[in-house]
Structure formats: C-alpha cells, structure tokens
C-alpha cells in the first residue's frame, strides 16, 4: 500500500506539472558559491562582477530545487534544464561601500589604513518556468 500511495502522489504532481497554472513558483539556485531561494520579481545581490552588461537577461542554470504551493521538485544535485528555467536581468553593477582595513602593532610605530571596495551585482529574477 506504500507503493500505491507514492504512485498516487506522483500522479497528482505530474497532473499539476502538465496543467497550465501551477501558481507562483520558487526556486533555489546556486549562484556565486551560495544557494539562494528566489521567486519572481526578487532582487538578489551577488558579491561578484558579472560579465553580462546591465539590462542583459541571463539564465541561471544551477537550479537545485523548484517548489509551488503543493509540490516540490528536488534536484540530485541539480534539476535538468528541460524541467525548469530561471531567468534573471542584471539590474545593477556597483561597488560596495569603502570597507576599512586598519591594523597596527603596539609600541612599534606601525600603522596601516586602507579603504577597499569590492565589486557587486544585483539581479532581478524575471521568470521561473516549468517544462520550458
């Protein structure tokens, strides 16, 4: 009866996948060494300079998980590109605020003061599509 239960569940999920309307989706994407949970119209900050120009639309390939209200699809470890497609727009490419690097050695007349700024990029998630 356990197998019949699970097959029933799989049937339910498949019927939802094949239907047009699955509601709002969310996804967990691997981006810049981090796993980020996103849904459409989200803003995410990446602590790296992205090669694409601002306004360019990019595809986030490493999708680890997709979920809707009623079901969740887990990748092992990533979902196939035929299953899900996450698109994002590069909205901003900036630098961080000046970060202070200050250090000294006591009684040694040794003092250093540096200001560092690191590249940053902001992405806007445009769409998460199942069976693109």
């Amino acid at each position: 009866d356990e197998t019949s239960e699970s097959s029933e569940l799989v049937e339910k999920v498949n019927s939802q996948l094949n239907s047009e309307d699955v509601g709002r989706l969310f996804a967990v994407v691997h981006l810049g060494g981090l796993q980020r949970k996103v849904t459409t119209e989200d803003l995410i900050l990446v602590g790296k300079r992205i090669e694409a120009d601002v306004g360019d639309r990019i595809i986030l390939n490493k999708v680890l998980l997709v979920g809707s209200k009623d079901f969740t699809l887990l990748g092992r470890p990533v979902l196939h590109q035929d299953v899900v497609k996450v698109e994002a727009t590069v909205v901003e490419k900036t630098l961080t605020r000046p970060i202070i690097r200050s250090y000294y050695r006591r009684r040694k007349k040794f003092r250093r003061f540096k200001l560092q700024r690191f590249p940053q990029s902001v992405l806007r998630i445009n769409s998460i599509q199942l069976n693109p």
Partner: protein
Amino acid sequence: MPSRVTPSSYLRNVLQNGVGRYVCQLQRVTLSFCKSTNPSRGARDFIENHLLEFTRNNPGVVIYLDPKRHHSPKLCVEYLNGRTETMSIDRYPAEDICQWLDHFRTRSGVQINRLRKNWHTDTPSIQGTWTPATNRPTSWNVTEFPCQEISRRLPDKETATERILSAAKALREGSPTNAAIGKETEL
C-alpha cells in the same frame, strides 16, 4: 568607523526596474575641466579619444562639457531618481575616467550603504511558514498531552539488546538455536 554605527539600508532598486524592461538610470554627466593646466590632461585626452564612443553607445545619456579655467577636473553625474554624485578626476588618466564613467552608467543611483540583507522579496513564503503543527494529524488538536499512545517508540528494527534477550530466552527454554546471534556473526 565600525560597521555597527555606519548608516545601513536594505537592498533596493528604483521602482520595478528590470521586471519588464531595463531603463538606464544615468541621465546627465557634467565633465568640468581646464583647457590648459596639467591635472586636466587625462580629462582632455578622454574628451578627444573616448567620449564620442561613449555617447554613441549610450544615446540616453546627456554629456555636458564645462571648461573652467584653472579648476581641477570633476565628474558630476545625475540619476533618474534625482540623486547627484560628484567625483574628482584630478590627474586621472583617460582609461580611469572611462572606467569610472562605466561604473556610474551601471549604477541604479541609490545611495551606497552598508546592506543589512542581500535579498529583497515581496513574497517571503509560498508554501507557508513552517510551524511544528504543519503536516501533522489534525486529531492532535483535541488530544491531551502527554499521550502514551502517541509518545511510544515507533516499531523499528530489533535492537541489539532485544536480540540478545530473545536469544537468551531461547537458550533458557532449551532450544539451543542461537539463530539471532548466528545471523549477526555471519553478516
């Protein structure tokens, strides 16, 4: 200044930029420079060699050239949200000015602050926030706890203690089939 006392903000962008199409937020650039003095040499070089390429690539950005006698060169940029940023380009080579102008072009115009979060969302949860009661039987709503029936250990594999006890019992009863232990040793 330690990060605790620096002004902070949350990740944001201008309106819903990027949801439909992307709009470049840089509107005006005023480049003030001197025609004769040395600190403006890079600025003059930039105007001669790189400025036209920039304007060709970005038709939406207005560039004003403002010669000021014996002043150090400055770059003043204005964004769609009304903010203005000024930067000194004193003794900067032309390549650096190109790079900084590109930096201003790719900015959204919001103030650069310490960010408290690197994620902004309007819908924080889709499947609902998890609570200890999610995916639990609803009959538990009317059960009085502690409940002996629910709190009992679920029947799992036979534990080692149980196996030894059962073997000992079998021995004691006179049937020397230490099957339980024998199985284990075989494995």
